[in-house]
């Protein structure tokens, strides 16, 4: 190798946890990019929903589903809980940024529980709706309703699982003021899941029909 | 092996000669790269646009390909090249030039195609020649509509459509199942037949083409037998068309003849259609006496029939076309000894031979 001018390379330990240039860490950047792709995924589902809704022959919701979706009590409470869980999640992040382990464990613990309750409430709501004739194969209304909320639910489940890992690792004391990229990354994901729900909830339950 | 300067310019000369002869040969080949002669007013419009696009494309191609060939021939590395060539990193003027020129070219092409699109896609909706093509796996039927555009005057189960020349034909497209596409190469045109929506377009066949038949074919993959969805368009003079139309309307009004059953003692041949194919590819019948074909159509909702042609290709019998699952008994007149062919009018790939002796 006839390389005349060389500089020594920064040490290569093979671990890739931390950025060399400062700025956000690899894990957090990776999570943000991944969430970008998730946004596009939901965009695809929403596009289908709006297309179906706009071209439904008898207006939306179709006559047989008018008044079948209820905001209260179940969905409204679930929505509130999910929003609260975003706050508790963020409190955990703030906690560990101060190096406060107790706050981290407590807040993430509450977040996991709230997420799980959301899932249970969603399942209960599904059962009720199913009994009421709103089924996956019940016209475009049922299909879009369950596909959109179902995929959101799957994301909540994924978030709860990731939060549980965070919880487990924080109880094992693996995070510190300096090293807690995973907490930050998972919290971003959890906020994303929350935002999707707000958009989804508004779309399915709130946006009125241009008669 | 050292290539001196004169040798190199000789190489360039040879390259230029090769390029020139390719160009000459190219001119003869140009006709191969043009679509068939159009037979509709809209087709002529498309053909004109195609020629312009082809011309621009040819110029771009020859120029750019020429530059590549030139660079390859002219700038090969020679053994004497030990020092580096000039290290040119770019040139902003050139960048602008080769951004602006293609921009102008595509702008021209866009404007021309926009203009011609408006002509090709125009639907005046004033004609009273209204036909609806109905596509289904795997057949075409053509419904002739009253001027109101709704009432079906009669339906052509055979995949053959008659249209008058010199008059505007309004064609609407419906699908019973998946997506198909109505495509007649000599129209230089196709339009998808999409379930759930009705596409329409209009065309005018040239007066000079009265008496011609154009073949068409489904152009959108629609399932296993997509390749069998052929159809024909017969161009008739306006008078012939009107006569034909009245004939068909009258025939549709008449009550259909009672289904013939085989006369006792007469030979009966069994034939079945399934999966867009006959179960037999050769049949035998006695010469000089009428016989019957008992035809079973086992393709649900798909239409078939049996038609018989003599050795000269002349159709001498055409059985009723009907959708499966169902059966018909076709009475066949006495035939002279010889070899005939039989086929399905709807699916021209369903064929066999009929030996009469």
């Amino acid at each position, binding site marked *: 190798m006839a390389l005349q*001018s060389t500089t020594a390379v920064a*040490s290569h330990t093979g671990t890739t946890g931390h950025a060399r240039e400062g700025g956000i860490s690899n894990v957090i950047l990776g999570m943000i990019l991944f969430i*970008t792709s998730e946004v596009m995924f939901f965009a695809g589902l929403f596009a289908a929903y709006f297309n*179906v809704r706009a071209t439904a022959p008898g207006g939306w919701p179709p006559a047989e589903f008018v008044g079948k979706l209820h905001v209260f009590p179940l969905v409204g409470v679930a929505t509130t809980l999910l929003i609260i869980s975003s706050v508790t999640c963020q409190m955990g992040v703030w906690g560990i940024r101060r190096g406060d382990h107790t706050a981290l464990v407590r807040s993430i613990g509450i977040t996991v529980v709230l997420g799980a309750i959301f899932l249970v409430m969603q399942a209960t709501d599904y059962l009720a709706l199913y009994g009421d004739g709103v089924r996956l194969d019940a016209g475009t209304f049922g299909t879009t309703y369950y596909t959109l909320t179902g995929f959101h639910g799957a994301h909540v489940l994924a978030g709860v699982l990731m939060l549980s890992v965070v919880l487990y690792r924080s109880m094992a004391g693996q995070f510190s003021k300096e090293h807690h990229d995973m907490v930050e990354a998972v919290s971003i994901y959890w906020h994303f899941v929350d935002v999707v729900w707000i958009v989804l909830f508004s779309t399915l339950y709130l946006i009125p029909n241009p008669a | 092996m050292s290539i001196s300067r004169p040798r190199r310019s000789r190489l360039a000369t040879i390259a230029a000669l090769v390029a020139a002869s390719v160009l000459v040969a190219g001119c003869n080949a140009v006709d191969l790269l043009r679509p068939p002669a159009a037979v509709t007013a809209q087709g002529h419009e498309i053909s004109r646009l195609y020629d312009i*696009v082809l011309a621009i494309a040819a110029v771009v191609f020859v120029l750019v390909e020429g530059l*590549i060939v030139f660079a390859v021939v002219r700038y090969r590395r020679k053994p004497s090249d030990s020092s580096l060539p000039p290290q040119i990193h770019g040139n902003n003027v050139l960048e602008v030039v080769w951004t602006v020129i293609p921009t102008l070219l595509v702008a021209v092409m866009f404007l021309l195609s926009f203009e011609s699109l408006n002509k090709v896609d125009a639907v005046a909706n004033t004609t009273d020649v209204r036909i609806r093509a109905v596509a289904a796996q795997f057949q075409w039927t053509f419904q002739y509509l009253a001027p109101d555009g709704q009432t079906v005057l009669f339906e052509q189960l055979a995949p053959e459509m008659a249209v008058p020349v010199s008059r505007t034909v309004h064609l609407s497209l419906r699908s019973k199942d998946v997506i198909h596409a109505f495509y007649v190469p000599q129209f230089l045109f196709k339009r998808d037949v999409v379930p759930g929506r009705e596409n329409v377009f209009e065309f005018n066949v040239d007066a000079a083409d009265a008496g011609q038949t154009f073949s068409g074919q489904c152009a959108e993959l629609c399932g296993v037998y997509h390749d069998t969805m052929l159809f024909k368009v017969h161009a008739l003079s306006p008078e012939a068309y009107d006569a034909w139309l009245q004939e068909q309307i009258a025939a549709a009004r008449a009550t259909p003849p009672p289904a013939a059953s085989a006369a006792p003692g007469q030979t009966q041949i069994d034939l079945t259609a399934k999966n867009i194919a006959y179960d037999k590819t050769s049949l035998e019948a006695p010469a000089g006496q009428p016989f019957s074909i008992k035809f079973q159509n086992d393709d649900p909702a798909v239409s078939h029939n049996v038609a018989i042609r003599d050795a000269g290709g002349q159709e001498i019998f055409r059985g009723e076309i009907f959708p499966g699952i169902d059966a018909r008994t076709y009475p066949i007149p006495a035939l002279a000894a010889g070899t005939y062919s039989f086929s399905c009018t709807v699916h021209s790939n369903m064929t066999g031979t009929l030996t009469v002796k």
Partner: protein
Amino acid sequence: MATTALTPAYAGRRAGLYDWLTTTDHKKIGILYLLNSFVLFFVGGMFALVVRLELAQPGLQFLKEAAYNQAFTIHASLMIFLFIIPILAGFGNYIVPLMIGAPDMAFPRINALSFWMLPLAALLMLSGFLTDGGAAAAGWTSYSPLAQAKYSGVGTDLWIVAVLLIGTSSILGAVNFLVTIFKMRAPGMTMFRLPIMVWTMLVTSLLVLLATPVLASALIMLFIDRNYGGHFFDPATGGNAILWQNVFWFYSHPAVYIMILPAMGIISEVLPVFSRKPLFGYKAFVFATAGIGALGFSVWAHHMFTTGAVYLPFFSFMTFLIAIPTGVKMFNWIATMFRGQLTFSTPLLFALGFLTMFLIGGINGAFSAAVPVDFALHDTYWVVAHLHYVLFGGSVFGVFAGLYYWFPKMFGRMLNETLGKIHFVLMFVGFNLTFFPMHILGLEGMPRRIANYAPGQADWTALNLLATIGGFTIALSMLPFLWNVLVSLRSGPLAGDDPWEGNTLEWATSSPPPPYNFDHLPEIRSERPVFDVRHGLGKGRTH
């Protein structure tokens, strides 16, 4: 502070099977990508030969329609989803960390996961042949309602799941590339010193990130329609057939740039090296690549001009526009060769193959941008000619250029030049013989996706026979290539670090590179650090 962690001692060639199965080294994963993709290229090629054999004559010779439709569907699905997209990701995997002076990808284990989804997906897709209804047969575009359960069997479900897996693999890979490129560049490697290959991987990854999830959502909706009584895409039950096309092409048009941009990147590395000149118009390349990526999201409906359901002038206009940034690249490549000193080694030959053939593919694509012309050409063999001129004439020639170029780096040995040239000539001739006649067939009205055509249809028979002969010539060209690879792996002449007098950082390390890639990095002062070192242009020179 060179704590070069070269322990355990460099294991390169001696790595056992277990190492390969569990590796997280980007170079080994890159090679696995190449290997897997090449195997599937041959399988996909076999299906193409089956198609060509059936079409050699009119009538049905070897296959019934049902089998034919499976053959071209699986041919295209393998070629697109399991050959061309992954193999370009494979090159990226191998070369991006080297080019930016990084020890590995940002997430090595996710990288391994991305790879291993691919063989699994291939098995799933091919296992369709074992089911009752056979493999997927609705074309690689899988239009609904044809792809609904009513019209197609379990093979289509397997196809959907396989493509979903591949999509997930791509998305994870894209995240990995982006973080690697944004965060792991060596000191001095600024964005405008990145090799163009890295830029193309960056833009490609953005396209994957934004487009592939939309395909995933479409596939999931189709799966729900097929298996759980959903009503998205079937008009018979209240859905919308055109919706599928919109979502599918919203992915698949950007996807065609996913399939070409990295190949353009390869060409942009090969041409300067073998011309001994810098790439002409570096920044123009960056902007053109970004421009193609951005415009790529606004042209999807040019595949739907004949549906009667899209706003034609807009999509026609945007489609025409895309010729401009691509033209900028073409002219810059040519300018790179001008006044250079060209050495006609095999990589350059394939790069020239790319230039000449992609030009044809780009131009015959632009025909379809003129909507009325597309009314004639859509769904005929003209489009088949277009897609092979860009995908084979472009991407595949680019893949081979890259393979011949980086083989010495990957395996430490040179490939045989004579065999390489035989490969090139046979492939170039065979390619044109196969696909040029398809222009004429298309104009004469031969629709695509038909197993049978009537005899006596103009000169369809002769042209089809020609295409079949060409197809087998391409297959023949693979023999000298395979022979070359197998022999050179064991006994090719040693390559040394930098056999081509390269420009970019991968040539500053050994061949093959050690784990974690570099002992020492040269100072990076331009987009050609190794060139600078070779010619003593270290200090003071700014680009």
